[in-house]
């Protein structure tokens, strides 16, 4: 028996370790905190390297933009002068839109009523796997960040924090195939689940077949999943798919955020008030008027 084991020790060990791997997978699906114990340690080791690399890259970019770029400045000056004139024209239109937007925000109570607070962080690392989409930020437990916090950028919802070490945190972005967000269509308030897919895409599922969903509809978080505050933009419907039978329809969604070019994000602290207040005026405006008022003016300038 011992001789048999010795002769096939490699194969037997491999089979045992495969079984262990399957058990670990099963355990980590059941307990999502399990992988985070070791991840924190790995992040503690890798995050400083990523931080140094990030800062070096920024320095190189700065040098390039500020000094090397000047070599061509004479050539480009005339071009810029003509562009400045054009931009001055369009700028006045943008200022009007910005002022109007500010007024609408105040009306909606974005500024005072919701009181959303967060920690701004720099993206310093990217996913080590092609199959799992994560990013690493330069803020961690020392800055009050914990697992399961929503992360946003200027355009919309980015994801949620998973593994957190003292000085860095990992964010599972919404396009990961293990991510799901409870959402509503902003125009009609139809509900559905937005899931990530391989290839950094989003898909709306479990939207009732009879619900009114159209291409171009904006999808926002519903706040019902307890992780993401209500009203964070996920993306826009780009195509719809209705099977001949079945209760639901699905839609392809274009993410609002360009995940490949994320540089700065904000981690929303827990126990935040929802963005869309339970205020009938605010809801009506959020659902119908905000995009209608702002968009045509921008595109029409």
């Amino acid at each position, binding site marked *: 028996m011992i001789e048999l084991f010795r002769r096939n*020790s*490699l*194969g037997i*060990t*491999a089979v045992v*370790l*495969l079984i*262990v*791997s*399957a*058990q*670990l*997978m*099963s*355990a*980590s*699906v059941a307990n*999502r905190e*399990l*992988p*985070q114990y*070791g*991840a924190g*340690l*790995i*992040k503690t*080791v*890798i995050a400083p*390297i*990523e931080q140094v*690399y*990030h800062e070096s*890259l920024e320095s190189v970019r700065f040098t390039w933009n500020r000094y090397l770029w000047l070599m061509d400045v004479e050539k480009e000056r005339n071009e810029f002068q003509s562009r400045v004139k054009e931009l001055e024209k369009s700028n006045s239109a943008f200022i009007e839109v910005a002022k109007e937007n500010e007024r609408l925000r105040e009306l909606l109570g974005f500024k005072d009523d919701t009181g959303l607070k967060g920690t701004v962080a720099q993206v*310093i*690392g*990217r*996913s*080590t*796997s*092609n*199959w*799992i989409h*994560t990013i*690493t930020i330069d803020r961690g437990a020392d800055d009050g960040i914990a697992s399961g916090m929503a992360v946003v950028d200027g355009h919309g919802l980015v994801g949620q924090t*998973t*593994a957190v070490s003292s000085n860095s945190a*990992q964010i*599972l972005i919404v396009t*990961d*195939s*293990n991510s799901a967000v409870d959402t509503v269509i902003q125009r009609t308030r139809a509900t559905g689940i937005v899931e990530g*897919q*391989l*290839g*950094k*895409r989003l898909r709306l599922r479990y939207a009732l077949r009879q619900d009114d969903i159209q291409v171009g509809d904006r999808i926002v978080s519903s706040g019902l999943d307890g992780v993401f505050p209500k009203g964070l933009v996920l993306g826009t419907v780009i195509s719809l798919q209705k099977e001949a039978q079945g209760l639901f329809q699905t839609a392809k969604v274009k993410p609002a955020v360009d*995940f*490949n*070019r994320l540089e700065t994000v904000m981690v929303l602290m827990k126990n935040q008030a929802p963005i869309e207040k339970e205020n009938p005026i605010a809801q009506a405006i959020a659902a119908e008027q905000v995009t209608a008022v702002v968009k045509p003016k921008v595109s029409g300038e």
Partner: protein
Amino acid sequence: MSNLRTIIVFAIAVVFGLFVQGTFVRSFAPGAYAPDIILILVVMVALSAPTTWGVVGAFVLGLLADFSTALFLGPNAAGAIVAFCFVVFWSRKVFADRWFAVSALTFVASNLKSIVCLIMFALYAGVDFLNFNSLQILFVEALGSAFLAPIVMKLLYIRRSTSSRGYSF
């Protein structure tokens, strides 16, 4: 001492590999599919130490890759074991000291590892992976790994040749 040095060099290679295949590659090519440096190290272990301890090493490397994703434990570990066994089996039948043989072994091993990962994602997490995108990622990742494998191995083996003690692979 030799074993300790091997472990230290390998630990540095793992940390460096995780950094390169994550942040480094994607800072130059946002959204690109990066080569799997950890898999290259697994192939290297399989070629250098086709033993019981070697398969344990491959398991640990895979597990570290799993920890770095902070989502699931097991898929990369299982994939690394399958890739290790494949390389051990085939390295006896090909001239594994030739760069193209190493590239070919790495290419197939990378595909095997990814397929094992995807099967585990599908079985345990219900991820739908039967689509063109998966094939694209699979192929590009394997191609990148196959291209880099001889270079990474050459780098690590050069160090070995300059050391009087050498590594006990």
